[in-house]
């Protein structure tokens, strides 16, 4: 049995010994321990170093509010979790945990020099110091900040664990399974409807586990608890979830619960879900989160061995661990007496109770006297001593100025209680100041939500049980035998004879914020509590100020000379406690992170050892390298083969929308800049779509199948937004039009054939369409059959060569592709990918929306006035094209660029200047939008948006790049076959 274990106390199984290591040293704990309780049982209080000053720190709390005892848990490669609270970390056999913020070890820490020089690290230190000179950033400030920033070690490997998530619904969700939560669940269960009761701890019961001496309805707390939980577990409509933290409360009673499934089990293999996120939509939410005891802010309050009174009570009552042999008490609230008496009754010596108040309840005085405890009323602890563990306290009596040293090995404190408002505030519930409690409590609810028990300011077991019962719809009143919770006072500053500037009175333990930091922030002009928070960093650590926010608020309120309720409270934000990224990501990992859309022809390409590229959420064939070829060689070969004979390209990702109805042409006239009335059935036309602001939105070829039916294509990435854009106008503006829209992108596979031999290849396979030059001219569009399969056949070209786009039902896509590929061998048919497609179209000066345009380019800027109907009185974007800025001189226009050195392929996105010798920052007149090696021309080509570009044709511009400035001449953007003669191949 370890030294500080008290057999006969606590809810742990002392017959089951667990071995664990902390900082490499071996210890023993028992089943039911947390790491904190097990270390305390071994007499270890020193569990961490603070963030800024690296001061030695001991455990303060006994639950998720713990600010100091943060450890990193090592469960193997990629499975290191930093910043785990030792107080919430369930012990298991073989647990390996390490303290943080220290080097080389916890007892000797080099970083503690910050502590020695703490006068140099006041509030706002970072803001004041890391400003100038700029040259210090790289070499001095950044390494320093990086070294100091963050708590604990960041994992170095990908997280190999799996995470799950699910949705859930219930009539009543109860957060917190202390007495109020359990009572609420019991009464809600009786009224039918689905009930979920969750609690962040492994064991349900809340405060009852810490105070086993309490009696409820004549039964001891643990017996009542066991019976109640059994009843709940047997009730079909109740779901009880332990190890489940309600991390956030969102709109319309949507609450996120993070359930920890495996961390408490030793040696769990990678496979089963480690955590599960439950997204619960609840009819009613009952918050029973309890309250957190407040530390007292006094000189030396951060010495290991100083902790909350209720924590000491929990370590004894729940874990059977004495936090010391000689435990002094410092309080401003009656509730600490219960802890003191509990400890005293378990043969722990209480050398002193120091109470700030001059007078206290008579029964407390009597009970202290019975136990032989010395009371120091109207007194305060003015300093503490002990290096890595408290050894003594100095008690100061301000009325006479007398001082007295008292030996102890722990000091438990209580500055009153802070109801937990976190989830209530997430739900935007109102709060009000309760002067008696010196705390905020819930006011008006914003959702169908009630707050019960200590988190609502209803302290004491009976009050909690009754409030919970009522919230669950019951009326029962409970009889209890319990310690009278009582009252307390709250002081912003505790009496001390030592000058404030020489005190070390910590408010936020985790971020090392002291009382004087907060006062300094106010002196320097920060009056809003939100500003004080950010300037001092109070409440900004991983514990989000659970133990510190109210103390900080009271100190700040006093400093600005305002009542606390006027100063307000900082905003609570989810998550309630630190949550793993894994829990948030859930299944959305690796292959499941995002759907990869594949075309019907994709498997064929994959078999060819193609290189893919992502385009939107599609994966597309990029280029098809032959053995030994690099990308440049492969693309050059694909381009050449297509221009000289025949290339085949999978264009299935093109967006497709079928526009149908008596008013289809009218609708098309409004949605596109081009005129559609004159487009004959059996023809197609390039369509340009603008937004209402006059800028190019999308483009694509549109075929007319019938008077009332258009086959519209869009860019690969633009399909969803074009569809939405059309639906929006159809439903909300052009409501008189009789038109239906259907997205058909995935109904059709599209095979593009380009090259002089394209017609020859398909001719034998096509039925029902006369493919002759005269009867199937450029921009013809017909329905028929190919390879025995229905097709919509376009004669179009995005390459400048004779071209066909063969639409076939998607499931025939691969079969038709393979037949054509087989037959194409006689023409050395060459499959090509998106890179070659881009080169071929750039040689012809065809734009890619989103690459050569950027949302600020009009059809006129893009050199496409021919696409804009002058006759139409209205189309989306027409009026905006007349906006003064859009008709002004000097707009950026799309031009071609030919580099002086034909071997230089410019970088896309590179900036263009008129004078390369001007001083920096240079006047940038445009940028390169597309740039490639053109095999057909034997040189590089580029397209660019350049200010007043058309007028600058034939002048030289400059592209400054690191190490070299390139010269290029502005040209027309069509580089190859400007007259389009190659389309007319026989």
């Amino acid at each position, binding site marked *: 049995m370890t030294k500080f274990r008290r057999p006969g106390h606590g809810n742990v199984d002392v017959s089951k010994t667990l071995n664990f290591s902390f900082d490499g040293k071996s210890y023993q704990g028992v089943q039911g321990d947390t790491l904190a309780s097990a270390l305390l049982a071994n007499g270890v209080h020193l569990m961490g170093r603070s963030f800024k000053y690296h001061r030695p720190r001991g455990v303060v709390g006994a639950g998720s509010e713990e600010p100091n005892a943060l450890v990193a848990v090592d469960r193997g490669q990629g499975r290191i979790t930093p910043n785990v609270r030792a107080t919430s970390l369930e012990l298991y056999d073989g647990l390996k945990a390490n303290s943080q913020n220290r080097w080389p070890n916890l007892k000797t820490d080099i970083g503690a020099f910050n502590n020695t020089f703490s006068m140099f690290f006041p509030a706002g230190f970072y803001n004041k110091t890391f400003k100038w000179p700029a040259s210090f950033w790289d070499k001095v400030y950044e390494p320093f900040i990086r070294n100091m920033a963050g708590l604990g070690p960041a994992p170095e490997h990908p997280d190999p664990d799996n995470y799950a998530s699910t949705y859930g619904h219930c009539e009543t969700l109860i957060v917190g399974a202390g007495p109020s939560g359990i009572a609420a669940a019991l009464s809600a269960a009786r009224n039918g409807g689905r009930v979920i009761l969750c609690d962040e701890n492994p064991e349900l019961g809340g405060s009852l586990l810490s105070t086993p001496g309490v009696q409820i309805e004549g039964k001891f707390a643990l017996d009542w608890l066991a019976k109640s939980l059994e009843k709940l577990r047997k009730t079909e409509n109740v779901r009880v979830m332990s190890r489940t933290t309600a991390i956030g409360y*969102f*709109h319309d009673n949507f609450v996120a619960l993070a359930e920890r499934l495996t961390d408490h089990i030793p040696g769990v293999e990678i496979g089963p879900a480690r955590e599960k996120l439950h997204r619960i*939509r609840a009819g009613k939410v009952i918050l029973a989160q309890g309250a957190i005891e407040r530390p007292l802010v006094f000189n030396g309050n951060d010495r290991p061995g100083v902790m909350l009174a209720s924590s000491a009570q929990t370590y004894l009552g729940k874990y059977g661990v004495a936090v010391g042999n000689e435990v002094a008490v410092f309080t401003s609230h009656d509730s600490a007496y219960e802890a003191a008496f509990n400890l005293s009754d378990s043969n722990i010596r209480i050398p002193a109770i120091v109470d700030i108040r001059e007078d206290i309840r008579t029964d407390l005085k009597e009970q202290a006297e019975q136990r032989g405890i010395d009371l120091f009323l109207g007194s305060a602890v003015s300093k503490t001593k002990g290096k890595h563990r408290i050894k003594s306290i100095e008690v100061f009596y301000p009325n006479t100025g007398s001082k007295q040293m008292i030996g102890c090995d722990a000091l438990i404190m209580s500055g009153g209680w802070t109801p937990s408002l976190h989830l209530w505030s997430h739900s*935007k519930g109102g709060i009000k100041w309760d002067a008696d409690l010196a705390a905020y409590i819930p006011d008006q609810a914003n959702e169908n939500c009630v707050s019960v028990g200590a988190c609502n300011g209803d302290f004491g077991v009976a009050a909690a049980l009754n409030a919970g019962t009522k919230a669950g719809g019951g009326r029962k009143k409970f009889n209890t035998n319990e310690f009278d919770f009582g009252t307390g006072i709250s002081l912003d500053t505790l009496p001390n004879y030592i000058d404030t500037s020489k005190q070390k009175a910590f408010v936020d333990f985790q971020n090392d914020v002291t009382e004087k930091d907060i006062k300094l922030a106010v002196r320097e002009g920060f009056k809003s509590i939100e500003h004080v928070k950010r300037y001092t960093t109070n409440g900004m650590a991983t514990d989000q100020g659970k133990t510190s926010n109210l103390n900080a608020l009271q100190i700040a309120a006093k400093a600005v000379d305002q009542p606390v309720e006027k100063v307000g409270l900082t905003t609570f934000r989810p998550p309630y406690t630190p949550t793993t990224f894994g829990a948030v990501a859930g299944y959305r990992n690796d292959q499941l992170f995002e759907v990869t859309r594949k075309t019907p022809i994709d498997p064929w390409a994959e078999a060819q050892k193609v290189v893919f590229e992502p385009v939107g959420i599609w994966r597309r064939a990029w280029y098809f390298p032959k053995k030994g070829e690099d990308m440049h060689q492969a693309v050059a070969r694909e381009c050449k083969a297509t221009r000289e004979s025949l290339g085949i390209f999978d264009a299935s990702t093109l967006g497709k929308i079928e526009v149908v109805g008596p008013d289809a042409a009218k609708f098309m006239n409004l949605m596109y800049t081009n005129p559609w009335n004159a487009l004959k059935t059996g023809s197609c036309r390039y369509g340009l779509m603008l937004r209402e602001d006059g800028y190019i939105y999308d483009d694509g070829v549109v075929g007319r199948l019938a008077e009332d039916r258009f086959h519209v294509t869009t860019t690969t990435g633009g399909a969803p937004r074009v569809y939405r854009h059309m639906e929006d106008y159809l*439903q909300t503006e052009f409501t008189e039009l009789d038109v239906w829209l259907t997205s058909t992108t995935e109904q059709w596979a599209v095979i593009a054939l380009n090259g002089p031999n394209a017609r020859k290849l398909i001719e034998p396979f096509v039925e029902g369409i006369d493919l002759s030059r005269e009867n199937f001219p450029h921009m013809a569009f017909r329905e028929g059959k190919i390879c025995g399969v229905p097709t919509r056949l376009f004669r179009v070209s995005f390459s400048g060569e004779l071209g066909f786009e063969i639409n076939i039902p998607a499931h025939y896509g691969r079969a038709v592709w393979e037949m054509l590929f087989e037959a194409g061998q006689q023409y050395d048919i060459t499959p090509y990918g998106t890179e070659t497609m881009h080169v071929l179209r750039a040689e012809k000066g065809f734009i890619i929306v989103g690459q050569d345009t950027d949302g600020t380019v009009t059809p006129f800027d893009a050199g496409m006035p021919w696409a804009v109907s002058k006759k139409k*009185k*209205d189309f989306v974007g027409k009026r*905006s094209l*007349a906006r003064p800025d859009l008709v002004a001189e000097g707009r950026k226009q799309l031009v071609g660029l030919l580099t002086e050195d034909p071997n230089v392929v410019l970088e896309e996105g590179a900036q263009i200047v008129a004078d390369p010798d001007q001083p920096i920052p240079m006047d940038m007149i445009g940028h390169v939008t597309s740039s490639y090696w053109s095999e057909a021309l034997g040189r590089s080509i580029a397209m660019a948006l350049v200010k007043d570009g058309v007028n600058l044709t034939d002048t030289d511009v400059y592209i400054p790049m690191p190490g070299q400035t390139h010269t290029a001449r502005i040209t027309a953007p069509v580089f190859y076959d400007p007259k389009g003669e190659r389309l007319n191949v026989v």
Partner: protein
Amino acid sequence: MLLIHCPHCNEERPELEFAYAGEAHIVRPNEAEQAEMSDADWSKFMFIRDNIRGDHAERWWHAHGCNMFFNAIRNTVTDKFTMTYKVCQKRPTEHQIKVAKND
């Protein structure tokens, strides 16, 4: 996550199914009106929005549902939806919004 009542599906569905689509009741001028409009008036129609603090009439799209656009009154401070209605319906009066709030 909000619950939004789609007036076409006549069901409350989670926010994930919907997409926001800007302020409601801004009617696109027809071709005759456009021809008459000054540049200043056109830019007002295009770019100027009320950005009010309080009950805001706005457009939503049931993208992953019935595919219909509809209008809603949502409070920009509390984020609460008071009502949703079809695009063919007029903007609710202050009184109608008040009544809906008390429902």
